Every structure is written in structure tokens, then in C-alpha cells.
């Protein structure tokens, strides 16, 4: 799979963060980038669209990232999509909780573009 074949969904309540993450993805050569502002929008979008990777924040209005991960893992069509939590919730207990809920990887904010790139490659085995 080449970078240009990868479709990524960014789920973050902050349009600033969606823009920052989107730039890192574009610099990696990823051009198919979808966005959602919270878990509700993400789940709705994923009901008729497939993606190769989800980058999700934790604290979001309506449905937070943790609840979203749990819901996605319950559904057949989304159960195996790799998910990286990109969030300010960086305590060890939060990381453990997210991984238990079904997240594949975790990146604490603030992060460098290199750190995000590394997490994405690690998660997608690139």
C-alpha cells in the first residue's frame, strides 16, 4: 500500500488540530483525508465510508473519543480499523483505558510532526 492509497479520518473537536494533523498527513503523501468534529459525526461518516486509519482526540463534545472507539469496535464494519488516539489525556491510566477500549496506538499532545509520522507508520506497519 502506497501513501497515496491510504484514507485517513481525523476526529477532533478543534479545527486547529484537524488542520495541523492534516498538514502532517499531506507531508507524508497522504491525500485522502476526511474530518469529523466528534464521535457522533465520525460514526455517521463511517456508516457508508471506509477508511484505513482513524486519528482521534479524547475530549470532544457529544461523544468523546473513548466512547467512539468502544462503539466502533462493536460494529463489524469498523471493528478492525486501526485507531490512534491523539490527545492531551496522557496519564498512564488514560493510555491503558484507551488501549483496553480498542485503540491501537496513542500519542500525547503536544507532538512533533516526526512523532505523529512515526506513530502512523508503526500502526500501519509501513
Amino acid at each position, binding site marked *: 500500500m502506497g501513501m497515496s492509497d491510504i484514507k485517513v479520518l481525523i476526529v477532533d473537536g478543534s479545527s486547529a488540530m484537524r488542520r495541523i494533523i492534516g498538514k502532517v498527513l499531506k507531508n507524508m503523501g497522504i491525500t485522502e483525508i476526511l474530518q469529523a468534529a466528534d464521535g457522533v459525526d465520525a460514526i455517521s461518516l463511517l456508516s457508508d465510508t471506509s477508511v484505513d486509519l482513524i486519528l482521534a482526540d479524547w475530549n470532544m463534545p457529544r461523544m468523546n473519543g473513548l466512547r467512539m472507539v468502544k462503539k466502533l469496535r462493536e460494529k463489524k464494519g469498523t471493528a478492525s480499523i486501526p485507531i490512534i488516539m491523539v490527545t492531551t489525556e496522557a496519564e498512564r491510566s488514560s493510555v491503558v483505558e484507551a488501549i483496553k477500549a480498542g485503540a491501537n496506538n496513542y500519542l*500525547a499532545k503536544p507532538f512533533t510532526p516526526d512523532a505523529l509520522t512515526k506513530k502512523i507508520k508503526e500502526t500501519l506497519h509501513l
Partner: protein
Amino acid sequence: MENVDSSSKQGGRRVPLDVRLINPFISGTKEVFEVMAGIPVKRKSLSLKKDYKMFGEISGIMGLTGEAVGSIIISFPKKLADNVVSKFLGIENVESINEDDIRDGVGEILNMIAGKAKTLLASTEYYFKLSIPTVIIGQNYEISHSKDTPCMVVIFEATNLQFVLQVSLAPHKKQE
């Protein structure tokens, strides 16, 4: 560990400044600016706030809830907010920054600072939960905080301009 004054005067009464509380916010501020915007930040001074007036035209505010309760506010003069947000968002032309960019950028910067402090304060009586930040743009406005809780004011310098971080946080009271 930051070297800060051990106490400061407020209304004639000596109120202790708890270094354990403020240092995570100071180090969080430095890290967020340096990692996300590539801007080095110097801490200039630390004091207790005596009124509700804001320092700059642009302020991000977040209520802190959970075990400890209070608020965190970051205030910038417009020129510095434009500089920081343009670097933060990767916008090359500072003059193209608009009000939405400022609101999004300052809100997220505050969110990250609070998040770093939250992580560093885990397992202390100052442990709190984050909320969604709000950004105010204007002049000569005031934002109140609880009179019962000291509000610490940290002045920072970045790109030869100053900005202010205010933290007011009441620790969790242990049950008797």
C-alpha cells in the same frame, strides 16, 4: 523544577504560592510553544492577581473541574497571538490570520497546556478534568474568578512580547 517565590501578598494577607501547582502549568506552556510553534518562551515573573482585568486583547479560558476546581486563562496582545497562531497552524502569511484562526489556535494551545499540567498533577490534590476552552477577543474586559482561591499570574516572554497565564485552582479537600 521552577524557582518561584514561596509566598505573595493578597489583600494584606500572606497567601502561600504552591510550587507544585504552578510549575506544571509553566513547564506545559514552554513545551507547547516550543514543540508546536517552535517558539522559545521565558518565564519573567510570578505573582498573585489583585483584580479581574485582562492583560491582552485575546484570552483563552478553560474551566477546570473534577477533584480540584478552578480556571486557567491565557492572554495575549493581538500581535503576539497572530505570530504564535500562524506558527502553530503553519500559516506562512501572518497578515492572512483571521478571527476564526485565532479562536481555534488559542483554544487548542490552552487545551494542550492544561492537558500537560493535568498529567503532571495526576495523583496530587490538584488533579482536575479538562473542559472545552472558550476564546474572548476584545479590549478592556474583565474575567472574574473565585475570591476564595488565589489566582496566580505568570508573565512569559516570546518573540520579545509578553503574554500572561493565570491559574486559579482550589485543591481537592480530603474527607474527614
